[in-house]
């Protein structure tokens, strides 16, 4: 892992954050591999998305339904839409284990969401598994571990 590679990964995460900020949800979905997973656990230390409720646990099929809805003119909980600002920091590329093609990347992330006079902050640790794809990457999985993941939430209409 050279400095250049590390910077490339960091720029990819910044690109992903930008797509979410700009509500380019279709483009965001296209970052994921066909069997890509987006997971936001609902409990600290939650081991499985299959045996326990999660805040988000989308494969491409559910992601597609979610995003079709986000593009729908009558999604009432996004009228007015959320304005979001994602920050990605403390990016670390974990050392490769064995001959795996996927790259494990952890980062700290903050999302600030503003909607109709309310501003909320989400913070936590992101873990991306990135699959090299030509000159860039695809997301094989993204896990968002929020520090308040087991809180009672007001509606969460947009991906974190």
């Amino acid at each position, binding site marked *: 892992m050279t400095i250049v590679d590390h910077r490339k990964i960091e720029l990819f995460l910044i690109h992903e954050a930008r797509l979410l900020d700009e509500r380019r949800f279709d483009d965001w979905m296209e970052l994921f591999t066909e069997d890509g997973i987006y997971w*936001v656990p*609902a*409990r600290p230390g*939650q081991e499985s*998305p*299959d*045996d*326990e*409720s*999660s*805040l*988000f*646990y*989308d494969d491409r099929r*559910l992601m597609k*339904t*979610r995003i*079709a*809805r986000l593009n*729908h003119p*009558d*999604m*009432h*909980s996004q*009228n007015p839409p959320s304005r979001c600002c994602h920050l990605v920091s403390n990016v670390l590329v974990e050392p490769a284990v064995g001959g795996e093609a996927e790259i494990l990347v952890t980062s700290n992330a903050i999302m600030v969401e503003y909607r109709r006079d309310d501003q909320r902050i989400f913070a936590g640790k992101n873990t991306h598994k990135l699959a090299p794809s030509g000159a860039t990457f695809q997301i094989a999985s993204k896990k968002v571990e929020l520090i308040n993941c*087991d*809180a*009672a*939430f*007001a*509606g*969460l*209409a947009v991906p974190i």
Partner: protein
Amino acid sequence: MSNYLTKMIEPGRVHRDIYLDPEIFEIEMDRIFGRAWIFVGHDSQTPHAGDFITTSIGRQPVVMSRHTDGEIHVLFNRCGHRGAIVCNEAKGNARKFQCLYHGWTYNTDGTLRGVPLPEGYPEDFEVGKAGMGSLPRVDSYRGFVFACLNPDVEDLESHLGPTKACIDNLCDRAPDGEIMLTGGVHRYRFDGNWKLQLENTLDSYHVPFAHESTVDRSGKQFSRREGDAEGAQVVSGEEEETHHTWKERGAWAFDHGHGFTGNTALDEKTRSSPVYDEYKAALEARLGAQQAEEVLTPFFHNALIYPNMSFMGLNMHIRVIKPVAVDRTEVNVYPVLLKGAPHAMNQSTIRLLNVTHAAASFVQTDDLEAFARCQSGVVGDSSKWVYFNRGLGEHTEAQNWGGREGKSTQELVLRNQYDGWLEYMGGAAT
């Protein structure tokens, strides 16, 4: 009874103050949550001696625990000394409960076990009587644990009435005849009165509009159950038949505010997937093909046990409504897992609940938006009333269940909640 409270409810409409007035909220906590059987939890949440969960009855913190003798206890989560919360976690296992402040300890049935320096108390102070205190009444039906602050309340099964059949149906769907609430919990909240959520559980009229963004061009919603190739027809298309099916769904209203809405029209005959077929075979092995088919063709969509719990037959979950303040409510939603079903079947239930009745789901988010807008908008002085008068007077006496029968897009089952409200709010405080 305070005269002004009886004036809050009229045929087909309720006064907005029941959503806005903090004094009425206080009276509701005393008279509804202080008098009715309140759903606390399920057996499967505390399977072993020493297991406990913490929750609330109205705003009073309580602990549901399994004592060493195997009995379930529902205790006030309150130290007998200075009143501090004793059990501080959402769930856990403990040999004894200990207060953090002065170290008073309790057995898992709430009795006092010991206090530090007991010789310091005056002779006439009976330390032994200062336990955490048990709820006066605790009972369960098929593992659903309820407790009541009113010692003179009728027995639980009479209270549940015909809604017992909905609980039975849910449990009977498990090859082992029991459900499990062991698949985690969704917690969401909203800035609105608790009754907004209660009304919504049995409100079929809002679905095609509020949840418009969940349906595709053909008017069908995404699939919400294992084995369904597609979801329910939510928005009526040009086909008269679909429109008819939606409008003809029934709704049933019972004593004490309880009720349920009829099943969503889905083609049960074509429901199939490897996971579902394996589950169905397991159920048939226990019940036989005919009875299994009856159980799997559910007669209810959503059932409400007034005032704090609803459960859904379509994508199975239990919802617990917790009033926090007149304009603030928390709701906990548990996926219903079927004991004896293939692991993958229960995993599917968990997965689909993430996108239907959770904070980040496709469905619930728009309901939460509606609740918040009702709470903010109802202060407008164009009227002091909100309306529940669809199908007013058009119900019939229910043949199968007792109680009253109407259509699910009418508002009988919502008006009935306010009959329950009046029943509890009436009479002298006990």
